[in-house]
Every structure is written in C-alpha cells, then in structure tokens.
C-alpha cells in the first residue's frame, strides 16, 4: 500500500502525466478504412434497402389504407355487398373492443413510457368482475336486464360503474405495488415487472375461475335485430358495442381536454419533473391515468361479454397485444389515434381473415406490429421527425 502510494506520488510529482508516448505512432499514419473496400454490389444493395426503408417509412399510411381498401373491394367482388357489409359490421364490433383496450395502453405509455403489459389481463379480469357482479345478486341483475327496456338500462347502470370502478382500482393497485418503485429505473425493469404482473393475473384467474372459457351470461341482455341493411342483420348488440366505445372515447377526449385532471395528465405526459415543479401531484395524476385506462378496459370487457358471452383466463394476452398494435398504429400516447387504430386493426383482422384465411389473421396483425414499430414507431398520424428535416 505505502509502496504504491509513494510510487504514484513520485510519478505524480514528475508532472501531470507520466512519461512515455500517449499517442500511438501507428495511429498517426494515414489509413484507409477496411470498410472502404466494400464491394459495389453490397453498397448498391444497402443503398436500395435504405431507400426502401425510407419509402415504407414515409408512405406507410398510404400503403396501409390502399391495402385495406383493396381488401374491402376484393371481398365485395368475391362475396357481394352482403358479405362486405357483414364483415364491415364484424370489423367495427371487434375494432370497438380493441379501441377501448388500446386507449389504456396509449394513456399509460403517454404518461410514464411504460408498455403496461398487464393491461390485456386487466381486461380479462374485468370480464370476470362483470361475471361475478352480474351473478352476485343470484342473477337478479340479469333478470332485471332481460325484463324490460328500463330494466336493461338499470342493469347497465349498475354493471358498468361497478365493474369499471373495480377495474380502475385494480389498475391503481398494480401501479402502486409494481410500477411506482421502478419509475426511475431503466425502461426495461418496469417492462419485465409488467410481464410479471400479466403472468400473475393470468395465473390467479386460472386458479380462481378455471381453465375453461366461462360464459358470462350477459349475452341475453341485449337481443334482437335493429335494422337490416343490404341483407346484413345489424343487431342491437352490435350497435350497443360500437356506440359504447365511441361514447366513452369522446367523453374521455373531452375529459382530458377540459378538466383540471386531464390537463394535469397532459402536462405530466409532456414533462414529469416540470409538472412536479408547477404543483401537479404527479403520483395522483399517474394513478388517475391507470384508473381511467383500466376502467375503459373494463368497459371493453363488458361489451365483449355482452357480445361474445365468454371470458377466459388467457384471453387478455393476445387481445392485449392486438390492442397494443392498435395503440402504436394510432401513434402511442395519442388517445384519438388509439381509437382509430383499434378500428383499423379490427378491419385488418376481419378482412385479412376473410381473404387470407382465418388462420392468418393473427400473423397479419403481428406483422403489422413489427412493421409499424420498425418503420414508423410514431404511428400513422404522428409526424415523423425525420420528415421535418
């Protein structure tokens, strides 16, 4: 120890730096880069790929819309107006549910830059909440709902708020327990935790509610055909699903724009520390974001149950990823974008399934996910920063 100290002291006293050469003489010679010898073919290929990348990046929305338009027309050509209409109806119904779930992803990502992997499972859990709540009174709510129009309204007025509040609190608890401590950790830590929460929720639902899909018995609430357009039966159920989704989305949009809490959310999303300095209770704002996102997922789960009459422990995983795709498609952090993205994904999966075969519809959505994240992570409506230059 003392030897070393004196040695370095001696060295130190000799000057700021020791003797020898700092600059490697080999470094001073002119050199051609190894890469300079790249074959022209490779250079050309790379240039082509780069150009292709740029093209896809810039014209992705156009490509996508053209593709969708083509698919719809193709279905029209193959199966006529009725088939097209029926599939558009299916796409809208599916899209409405995706949209409701996608909003939760987009809000959470917008505010704390976390892909809330567990969000899809909050959706499933909310489905079970609805199932339990509807069954709590010995099926009284169910019989109320099927009794008369006013009864249905009452039942909906019971099931929606209760389920949404329960789901909202679930979301808040998840944030409080699993994410808050990791807010300043590197991005990957909370993502891994989120995957953990997702698996935990799935596991709990599996243990509690069993492996089978559970009919929620909500499908009998709304029945009957509303209107028949061009040979397509549009049921009250379909209208209900889409109307609920649109209604909730617009109220959320208004909420975020008008209310103080909404403004706080937007401010926190912009700059968390600045918001903190300007007196915004950041923790509460983030909790509120989780609450609203989860509540919307719950609304999605209720309309899902009413429409499809089933819920299963692992439903949320795939639905969650699809909804996440919708969120990035619409530009993550953008609430309206997420809604529109949901509907677009609905159209893609239904029409893609019709044309390419149902076995491809998932792959198609995942391919969209990969393409959009790779080429245009800002989404359809986001202005790409590079194009500004």
């Amino acid at each position, binding site marked *: 120890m003392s030897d070393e100290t004196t040695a370095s002291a001696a060295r130190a006293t000799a000057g700021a730096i020791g003797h020898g050469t700092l600059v490697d003489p080999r470094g001073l010679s002119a050199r051609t880069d190894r890469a300079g010898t790249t074959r022209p073919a490779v250079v050309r290929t790379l240039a082509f790929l780069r150009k292709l990348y740029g093209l896809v990046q810039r014209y992705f929305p156009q490509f996508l819309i053209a593709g969708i338009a083509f698919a719809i027309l193709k279905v029209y050509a193959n*199966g006529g107006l*009725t*088939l097209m209409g*029926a599939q558009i109806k299916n796409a809208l*119904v599916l899209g409405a549910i995706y949209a409701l779930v996608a909003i939760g992803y987009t809000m959470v990502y917008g505010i704390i830059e976390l892909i809330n992997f567990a969000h899809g499972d909050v959706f499933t859990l909310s489905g079970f909440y609805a199932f339990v709540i509807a069954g709590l009174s010995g099926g009284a709510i169910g019989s109320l709902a099927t009794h008369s129009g006013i009864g249905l309204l009452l039942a909906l007025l019971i099931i929606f708020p209760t389920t949404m509040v329960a789901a909202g609190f679930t979301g808040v608890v998840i944030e409080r327990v699993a994410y808050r401590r990791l807010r300043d950790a590197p991005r990957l830590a909370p993502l891994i935790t989120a995957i953990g929460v997702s698996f935990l929720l799935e596991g709990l639902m599996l243990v509690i509610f069993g492996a089978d899909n559970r*009919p929620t018995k909500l499908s*009998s609430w709304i029945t009957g055909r509303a209107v028949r357009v061009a040979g397509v039966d549009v049921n009250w159920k379909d209208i209900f699903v889409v109307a609920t989704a649109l209604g909730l989305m617009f109220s959320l949009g208004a909420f975020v724009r008008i209310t103080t809490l909404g403004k706080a959310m937007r401010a926190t999303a912009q700059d968390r520390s600045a918001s903190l300095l300007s007196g915004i209770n950041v923790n509460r704002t983030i909790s509120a974001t989780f609450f609203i996102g989860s509540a919307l997922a719950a609304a999605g789960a209720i309309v899902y149950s009413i429409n499809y009459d*089933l819920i299963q422990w692992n439903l949320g995983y*795939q639905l969650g990823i699809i909804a996440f795709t919708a969120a990035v498609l619409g530009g993550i952090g953008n609430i309206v974008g997420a809604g529109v993205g949901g509907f677009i994904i609905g159209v893609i999966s239904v029409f893609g399934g019709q044309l390419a075969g149902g076995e491809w519809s998932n792959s198609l959505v995942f391919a969209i996910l990969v393409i959009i994240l790779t080429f245009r992570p800002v989404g359809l409506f986001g202005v790409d920063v590079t194009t500004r230059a």
Partner: protein
Amino acid sequence: MILTKRLLPVVGVMGIAALSACGTSSTSSSSSGGGGGNLASCQGTFTVATDLPLTGGDATDGPPVEKAAHLAVTQALANKTLGGCTLKYVSKDDATVLKNGHDPAQGAANITALSGDSSVVGVVGPFNSSVAVAEIPIASQNHLPLISPANTNPGLTQAGTSASIDTNSLYPGVHSYFRTIGTDITQGEILAYVATKELNFTKAYAIDDQETYGKGLSTFFQKSFTADGGTIVGTASLPGTTKQFQTQVADAQSKGAQVIFFGGTSGNGCGILRSQMPASIPELGGDGCQDNKFITDAASNAAGAQVTSAPDASKLPTATKFYSDFKSTYNEDGTESPYTPYGFDGMNALIQAIKAVLTANNGQPPTDPMTFRDSVAQQLHKLNYPGATGTVAFDKNGDTTQPGFSLYTINGTAWAPKQLLTADASGKVTVAS
C-alpha cells in the same frame, strides 16, 4: 421356508376369493373366477396406467374416462382377476398449463417415463389424436401396449388415410396400439349421410381446429359429403384459441351454406362457434363436440347442433352394471361423456390380456418386461371380451371390430342420443337403431 412363503398367499387368496364369491355373487360374471388354479400362485406387481388429459381446457374429457379405467383396476383387484398378482395403477395427465390442455410433448414425456418403468405393462390412452401421434412411436419402440378409448383419426392405424400422418413412421418398433372406438372415416361417412340423406342439405361449410383430429374429420366429412352429392361451399382452418367466428359465419352465409360443419373439440371452439351462428343454420360436428362444455359455450343457441359421437352405451344392457358401479363408486352418473365406458373396457381389455399372458405362462409373469409387453399386445389382438360397450375385439391394425357412432342432438340442456349408425367397408351407412 420358501414353501411357506409361497403357500401363505395362496391360502389367503383362496379365502378372500371364496368370501367375495359368497358376498357378491353377481360380480364374478366378467372376471370369470381365478381361471387356472396356477394363477393363484402368481407373484408380482405390475403397473397399468392411464394417460389422459385431466386438467386445463380438456378437463371435461379426461377425468370420467380416467375414473372408469381406475374402476376397472379396482374391481380386478377386488375380484383377484390376476390371482396372486396385484396391479398398481398410475394415472398420468397429458395436459399442461402452458398449453391449457392436452400437450403432445407432455404425452410423449409421460409415455417415455412409463416405458422406462419396467413394471408397466400397458397404458389406456391417449385421448387426443395429436397426442397419439407423439406417443405411438415411443410406445412402439418400447413395446408398450396403448389402448385408446377415444382416438378416431384413421391415419393412426391405416396407412394412406390421412394427409398429415405418416402411419408407417409411427411404428418404428412393434405394433402395440389399439383403440376401442371407430375411426373418422366411419364418422365422416355417417355425418355426411346425416347431412345429405336425413337433413337433405346440399351446401355445407367446413371449419376445423387445425389439429390432427379436427382436420382429419373435416377432410373425411368433406369427401363423403361430396360423394353423397353435396357441395362444400367453403372451408376455414382456425387455431384452437379462436374466440371469434363471425368472419367465417358471414362468409358461410354469403355462400349459401345450409349447414356448418365443425371438425374439432369443444375446447377448441365447437360450442363458441355455435353461439355465434344464426339459429337458423344447424351445426354438425363429431365426437369432439359432444360434451357439457359445448352446451355451456353454445348457451341459448345450443339447440340446432347435431353431432355424432361414440355409440351411446348408457342404454345397453351390457353397460348397466358398469354405470351402477360407477355411480356407487364416484357418486356421478358417468353419462356426461360417452367415452366413459370405453375407458372402462379399454382397461378391462388390458387386464384380460395380462391375465391371458399369465395363464399361458403357467401363472407366472414373463421375466423379461419386453417379452411381457409383447405377449400382452399379442393377447390383445386375440382378445374377444364381453365389455360394457359390447364385444371388445381388435383387428390386425388394432382397430375395433365394431365401429359405429351415435347421432346426438341437444334436448333441452343435455345431449340426447337420436340414433345409432354404422358403416360398412364400402361406406354404406345403415341406421342400426
């Protein structure tokens, strides 16, 4: 010393046999006493096993069959069917959580483990054809007899009948696979007969769940349906996780399908499909759909489905005793799955084959486990045993000699058998009852 050791159990066994004969005289009809007196001197414990999906999404399929097979073992032990030898019963689950149901890899692992245990002489299972594809080669290499109560894909035994299964490659070793149920060729013919002749449909849309069983059944149905003069207007192949069938239903409707056929299991969406179909279009399916899960999934739309499934044995006089025993043992009816008595018969067939081997070998088990297993397989080929579902006998492929299926419809909230149909080798379907 040795003498007393050998004698003691003999005396004991005889005593118990006599007691049981006095107490319950009706039980001995199927066990036919102790056979040769030399069986009583039999010494040893062999293991018989089941390999069925017991948990996860398939939990409605496997457990009743497993219970029935277990019941057969319990009865054989009580009746001393194998004389002085005893049976150990092992139940394996080929369903995993990660797959939420039957898992070929888990099935393969189970058979590997069972094969490695030299005391195991035979297995009842598997339930699903996709699991069978994974298990048969291992069982074949290890000479282990497999008796399936539910595999219907013909490609498992008959070369050239399935596009996806290379039958010959399933048997790298000996042929040790048997099944107590008919194949999908028969089932497809019967379903097509029902669709064209009884319901008078000419346009059908076929959906399958992408699995060995579902895809196979769908193919045979399409073939027979076309042969019977119908047209397949469209097909779809969807993964078992599918929860939305509206796209396909709309497609089918626009193509004017009068009936939608689903090849697959209710765990893979048979009942969900029904719930999302208009009530005006009936659904047709195979034995994979005939369970309670279908009824819960299909909910209010359940009526309007017609499926073929294992012949309904609950009304057979030969099965009366089985059902009453099942009821008294488990306090369950055992009628929710038609496969339940087939599991019972499968296990009994195995036990009878073991017994035949022991008898032929002077009351002693062959010392080499492989020889033992081979002998059991040989005895199974020769078997002609009066089981609960009728005569249990296998042809050279290991298929049952009495293929037939019942047509079931939903009656209120339960499946009700409508008629029993059989098909001959030429594909001609006759209504048996």
